[in-house]
């Protein structure tokens, strides 16, 4: 996927949800599943999306 901060193209499945160049953290709210193939299956997609949403609702401004 392409990092929304620095445009660097990386593979979230290998590098994780942080851009290896600028360090920007990705989440399910900053990238769609079509752009990102970090999750191995539908269940992980649901789990990650839900935890991202809960974290955002918890007031974490990051």
């Amino acid at each position, binding site marked *: 996927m392409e990092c*929304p901060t620095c445009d660097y193209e990386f593979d979230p499945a290998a590098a994780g949800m942080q851009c290896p160049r600028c360090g920007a953290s990705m989440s399910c709210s900053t990238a769609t599943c079509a752009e990102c193939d970090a999750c191995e299956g539908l269940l992980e997609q649901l789990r990650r999306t839900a935890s991202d949403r809960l974290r955002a609702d918890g007031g974490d401004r990051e």
Partner: protein
Amino acid sequence: MDGCHDAGCDASEIDADSTLALVGCPNVGKSVVFGELAEQYVDVSNYPGTTVDTTLAEFGDYQLTDTPGVYGISAFDEEERVTREIVLEADAVVNVVDATHLDRDLFLTLQLLDMGIPTVVALNMMDEAEAGGIDVDVEALEEALGVPVVPTVAIDGEGFDELRERVPEATAPESTDIEAYYEELPDELEASRREKTLLVEGDEDLAREADVGGVMADGGSPALVDPGLREEVYGQRRSRVQSIVDSVQNVTRTDESIGDRLSDLMINPLTGTPIALAVLGLIYYFIGDLVAQRLVDKLEGEILAAHYIPAVESFVGGLLPEAGWIEPIEFLLINDNLGLLTVTVQYIVGTLLPLVIAFYLAIGVLEDSGVLPRLAVLTDRGLNRIGLNGRAVVPMIVGVGCVTMAVITTRMVGSKRERTISTALLGLGIPCSAQLGVIMGLMAGLGLIYWFGYLGILLVVLGVAGVFLDRTLPGESEALVTELPRMRIPRPGNILRKTYNRAKMFLREAIPLFAVTALAISALDYVGGLAAIQDGLRPLTSLVGMPTDFGQILVLGLIRRDFAAAGMTDMALSSAQVFIGLVVITLFVPCILAMVMILKERDAKSAILMWLGSWVVAFGVGGLLAAAFGVIA
């Protein structure tokens, strides 16, 4: 430390032994640092992408180069290529790092050190880090990096004495962890440490030129290393960044400031839209009422028209001899329409200057307070509908200052497609500050409803043109990528300095052009050419319900947009005609300088299409308005 002139200088003008590059991520304050080190003014803004070209200046024994902001030394896009070329050749680097984004910026720093480039780090925005509860241990950072680190607050000029002193101490560690990866390169490769670092990161441009055992790859397969090695190198460097950040930075949670709350309100469409409209209303009151109505009336009417023009007419009349051949010269100098020494001076000093200064003051406040980038976020969704993203609001707003400058800043909006759309919209319907100032002055006499009507028509035209271009041009738009600087109370010193320099640059460009135009128009007027052109334009002026004299306004508008607006101030027109005339001259062709810039930045075909399209749109919309108002002669 000699600056050459306001906009930097040519390499040939600089007598320097070494080269020093100013490198950093976008929007970290490189241009302010450049201005401080070179002791010359550089027009800077607190949104990313202001520097789209390199700028040179002399700094001690160095040739100092300001570079476009990049997140890493690589060749993924044009700006990165430009910066990479400069860095590969530089003797030393001043790496400007944003203290509030250490985790992001130290990647570039470690990359420079991996390349073995002598570096000094300017740890900028220390005031903002402090305000955000970020405490950076500068000594620990210096020790961790192994190079000088100088804390600075560029905008206030803090830390520059130390930075100037420590530039000669620029250094790089003898070796770094990257060297382990050099083994992946072919044994026969002859390359410097800088090149080896980029090669293990998969730099394709360098790989093409690589000298492997005396055999240049020259267009062959660019892969000198395993394609996955870059990810590994980057990942390893990011771990080092994280480890340094963890050891030197301490973040304490601070309460949300008023600026943060205001920022949230501004980027929320529900609250941000009324705030943006209120800001526009305030600007209108300041420029359209206070300056255009009161100050300009006083300057132009009570001082220049009452005292200056009679005095000049009397002086020139007395100076020139009574002879037939002198009549045309006297006409050029003091005729009532556009005399070089009378009406031209009255326009420049009495109308343009106060309005342009007022406009630059208003834009300066919006920039310095951090409102402009928030407008980019707010307008992103709307701009998406016309094939642009929120970044395009910056050229559009810069275009309200000067379309010529804005055409250059379209480089920051993304792909060629978006650049074409934003350039076309700039040329079509964005009035420049000088023109807008005069327009606001004329609109003030009509009332606020006409002002909003004018803005509404421009928005509709821009919207329709944008949708048309979005649907006809090939390709797809890019998403918005921008950073929001902290909102703050604007600094009067900054705003005044920007306003002074921008007004100075404007006058430097406008006065000679205005003078030449005035002479040309007066000469045409004298020989009857103006009347002929006006007659030729009669079908068009009739179409939009304007008198034949409006043809002269159009001729002025071909040269500069503000000349046309200023020319309308002396015409006897009804309210509807003033309104229609202002819409037509706004949508009419870009000024000569803007056209030159469009030719330079785009291509001849696009420029001609934009120029012709402006005629069609201006008179199409003007004709519709005239029909609606029922003023067709």
